[in-house]
């Protein structure tokens, strides 16, 4: 990838186990949480109505799980490039994320193997928030060989 072409797909031949992915930082506010919930068609009021969230024991609205998987896939393909295919994503949910928090996604390559005409890249990652890990997980993306 070069600065001149931000949408070049990463060359699978240059990837090694232990490589770090480019971090993704997401500043979370109420607008971001509501936009993600509605775009993913999740109308649970805990993701847009603070009064309702309070009745559920939460101090504020919190990010929905479909937004979590969305940001994970963005983190993966921002690094791997547009011709990467996300073929597996497995997340474990940690502490919630509320408006005012910052999420920092980091990850590293844990495995590489050939899969037909592609290279399958295995990745372990986490999204750390203000009060602990919000998401930890593993994924596989496939790149043209």
């Amino acid at each position, binding site marked *: 990838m070069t600065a001149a072409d931000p949408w070049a797909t990463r060359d699978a031949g240059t990837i090694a186990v232990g490589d770090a992915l480019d971090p993704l930082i997401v500043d979370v506010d109420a607008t971001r949480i509501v936009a993600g919930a509605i775009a993913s068609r999740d109308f649970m009021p805990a993701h847009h109505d603070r009064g309702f969230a309070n009745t559920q024991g939460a101090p504020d609205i919190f990010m929905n799980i479909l937004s979590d998987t969305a940001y994970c896939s963005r983190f993966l393909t921002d690094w791997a490039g547009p011709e990467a295919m996300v073929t597996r*994503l497995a997340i474990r*949910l940690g502490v919630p994320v509320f408006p005012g928090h910052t999420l920092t996604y980091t990850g590293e390559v844990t495995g590489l193997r050939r899969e037909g005409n592609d290279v399958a890249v295995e990745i372990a990652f986490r999204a750390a928030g203000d009060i602990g890990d919000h998401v930890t997980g593993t994924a596989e993306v496939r790149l*043209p060989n």
Partner: protein
Amino acid sequence: MSDDEQTLDERLAGLIGKPVGSRAVTVAPDPVNVPMIRHWAAAFEDHNPVYTDEAFAEASRFGGIVAPPLMLQTWTMATPMITGIAARGGSPVAMEGEAPLAVLDRAGYTATLATNSEFEIDRYLRPGDVVSASTAFETISEEKNTRMGKGRFVTWVTTYTDQDGEVVGRQRFRILKFNPSGAGS
């Protein structure tokens, strides 16, 4: 009550393979389409051009616009009935009959915590694809001591298929149903 006639474990074993919701199959109300993809991409600031840039997508290995892979779950989300949503506890639509997991609530596991969401993506969806989802219980664990209290992990699998009945992806979703009165014990 049949609760008295069968042990809890027998009742839970009877749920395995059964639908999680009131319907066995949910068909997406709309086919995969560019306006919803564009809305999603904007919300998550995901500027990957294969989702929204026709010329780029055509020149890519996909040969045309594809939907973001983790949008898979979005296509079959219930169209909400906004009126009364809070009164229904946040459920977008009214449940028909009793929820299958009510048996766990009656056994004291009244609280719910989502713990895992796992996707396998077999192929990327394209505009025009019509997604169906069928969801069934896969496993219900024995009682475990967790930091939330005593609980059971419940896993269900959603299989997503296209208009030809071909599987396009799967999702495993796991929750902990726990007894909130026993936290920390």
